[in-house]
């Protein structure tokens, strides 16, 4: 099973602040994903990537940037955080046809 590690696990920032969420997988999987989880919405795809330097737009990309610096590392950037971005963020990597998730990063924007 894939090992996906996220950091930080918890983050509080102020409106307008700058936040970077990190995700690392050590299985050399090509596809990596960033989702946000909110009550009533399930998981919504923000961005995804199929390799270093690649970025694909998800379904709710507004206010988010992402960067895949290596095969292992996928970052989600919130450059001007807003309260609407308070959420639980999950990173996942794809092994075969299946997504495997990290432990999540809880972000609160006050």
């Amino acid at each position, binding site marked *: 099973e894939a090992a996906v590690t996220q950091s930080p696990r918890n983050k509080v920032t102020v409106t307008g602040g700058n936040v970077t969420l990190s995700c690392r997988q050590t299985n050399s999987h090509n596809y990596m994903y960033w989702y946000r989880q909110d009550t009533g919405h*399930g998981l919504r*795809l923000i961005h995804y990537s199929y390799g270093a330097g690649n970025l694909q737009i998800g379904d709710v990309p507004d206010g988010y940037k992402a960067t895949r610096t290596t095969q292992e590392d996928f970052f989600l950037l919130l450059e001007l955080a807003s309260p609407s971005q308070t959420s639980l963020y999950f990173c996942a990597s794809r092994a075969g046809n*299946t997504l495997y*998730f*990290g432990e999540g990063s809880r972000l609160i924007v006050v």
Partner: protein
Amino acid sequence: AQSVDQPDAHVTLSEGASLELRCSYSYSAAPYLFWYVQYPGQSLQFLLKYITGDTVVKGTKGFEAEFRKSNSSFNLKKSPAHWSDSAKYFCALAPVNTGNYKYVFGAGTRLKVIA
């Protein structure tokens, strides 16, 4: 566009009963379908998937699911249910014919099994 619907936000049943969580999808071609479980405070864990072939697939923790193309459903089942099955369950679809691998999730069903 593809979508996944889990019509029951909450399901409560007694331990020992049979559970069935509903999932329907909208996709023009043959999808890959998945079930995940999320225990309180934890991440999502993979339970099972349907790719092709046998329409009844078995997964971990005693769960199984049946793919029904006729009504675009992929319901999750287990019998008997145990109190430890209390969790949130997500159905997901991968629209592989598009080549973009954008996995789509339903809103989830929160299951409570009363001991």
